[in-house]
């Protein structure tokens, strides 16, 4: 087993499948009366969050607690970081406290890689800048597999702001490793064609959502990340929504079995219409529940053994 999970590229097909299979066993736990396993008793997991997060942070916290690990939550606000402490000094503090794993979210791409050189424990990337978010890709793959029964040969359209999306990058890497065919769809200004080519030999690019939908098993809508956009990438929100938003009319173009995913948080009415987000095709709530099982699997596989 690998030591760190910094990028979806750390995972080969066998390891990724092991994580998904382990997550399936962990999922059985949520139906039990005692939702706790003793596997990580006495281990310490630090959640180091330099950026705001709701579902990822509570999901990692719930996952670690269900495995009986001790959890320390650290958010940059209200810590010494606001007094100017560097990531390295914070890392050395965590090291001195004996953290067995550090789950880090940071606005700087590559922060988890730097951190893994400074601490002895495992480092799990919970989102770094516009770079990667590997556990989100794992929970997306898990959701696709549990809904559609397979990943190999699955046609997945990832739609929207690919340029700023760490979720898209990790998904392209992981889904290509697992044999799915990914098509990235969005306005040319938001699709970094050279990066896509570097990430995957099989991923395709399209600028026309309507032509991609009839041949897709999965549509993954990405959030338009206005907080990361200093320039104007499209003329207006209304035009973006008209061309790349998933509304009810567009959803009807999908095959009968196809599912609609969104990593959250959603801009309802922008990239996804409320009727679509709340339709039976949508897996958005399921993705959150699966997130806990997948993160339990990751923590167990990184920390459970020697």
């Amino acid at each position, binding site marked *: 087993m690998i030591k760190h999970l910094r990028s979806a590229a750390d995972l080969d097909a066998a390891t990724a499948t092991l994580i998904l299979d*382990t997550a399936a*066993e962990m999922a059985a736990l949520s139906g*039990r009366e*005692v939702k706790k396993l003793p596997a990580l008793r006495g281990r310490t997991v630090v959640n180091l969050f330099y950026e705001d997060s709701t579902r990822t942070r509570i999901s990692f916290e719930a996952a670690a607690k269900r495995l009986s690990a001790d959890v320390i939550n650290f958010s940059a606000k209200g810590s010494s970081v606001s007094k100017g402490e560097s990531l390295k000094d914070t890392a050395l503090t965590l090291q001195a406290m004996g953290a067995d794993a550090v789950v880090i979210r940071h606005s700087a791409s590559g922060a988890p890689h730097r951190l893994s050189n400074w601490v002895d424990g495992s480092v799990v990337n919970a989102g770094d800048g516009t770079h990667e978010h590997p556990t989100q890709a794992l929970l997306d793959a898990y959701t696709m597999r549990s809904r559609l029964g397979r990943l190999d040969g699955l046609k997945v359209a990832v739609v929207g702001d690919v340029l700023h999306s760490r979720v898209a990058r990790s998904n392209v890497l992981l889904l290509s490793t697992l044999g799915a065919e990914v098509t990235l769809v969005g306005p040319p200004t938001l699709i970094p064609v050279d990066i896509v080519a570097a990430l995957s030999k099989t991923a395709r690019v399209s600028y026309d959502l309507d032509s991609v939908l009839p041949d897709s098993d999965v549509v993954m809508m990405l959030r338009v990340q206005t907080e990361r956009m200093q320039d104007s990438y499209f003329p207006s929100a209304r035009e973006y929504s008209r061309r790349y938003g998933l509304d009810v009319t567009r959803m009807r173009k999908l095959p009968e079995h196809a599912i609609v995913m969104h990593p959250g948080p959603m801009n309802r009415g922008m990239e996804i219409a409320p009727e679509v987000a709340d339709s039976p095709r949508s897996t958005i709530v399921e993705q959150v529940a699966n997130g806990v099982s997948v993160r339990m699997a990751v923590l*167990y596989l*990184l920390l*459970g*053994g*020697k």
Partner: protein
Amino acid sequence: MAQPRADAPSKIILAGSDLHRVVDRIAHQILEKTSGATGTVLLGIPTRGVPLAHRLAARIHAFEGVEIPVGSLDITLYRDDLRLNATRALGKTELPAGGIDGLRVILVDDVLFSGRSVRAALDALKDLGRPSSVQLAVLVDRGHRQLPIRADYVGKNIPTALSESVKVTLTEIDGADEVKLIGGLK
């Protein structure tokens, strides 16, 4: 525990029909000791305890026509040696639809050795429900207990040295029914 080398001498203890007879005897003993096996659930411990549990249930059905629910109980996350070894893949835990509350649970495993697996199974069981009682059935008891644990039903007692190991193979998993003693023999 040191494992015998791959080329170590081995001796077959039970093969084919012998193993079937042993399973038949355990099935009879369960019927006898539980007065017809009512209110009983068989839980196999992966990997080889699971097919054994299914075989016992099938034999009990053949003898007396009683349907006994069968499930599996994975103990990986409850082991006390988790962090001494490389990470283990998980097995399946599947309880019968009726659960285990208020029922007599019979744990089924292939080899009883240190007793640590059974200890882990008892811990796992308490997180899943509250059986009225728990019993243990094993195909082979090889001795060397490290905990105060004993089996209620034993297929065969095999006195062993610590340097030896007992290998059970079953048709469902390995393609043949056999119990082998490996190493230690000259």
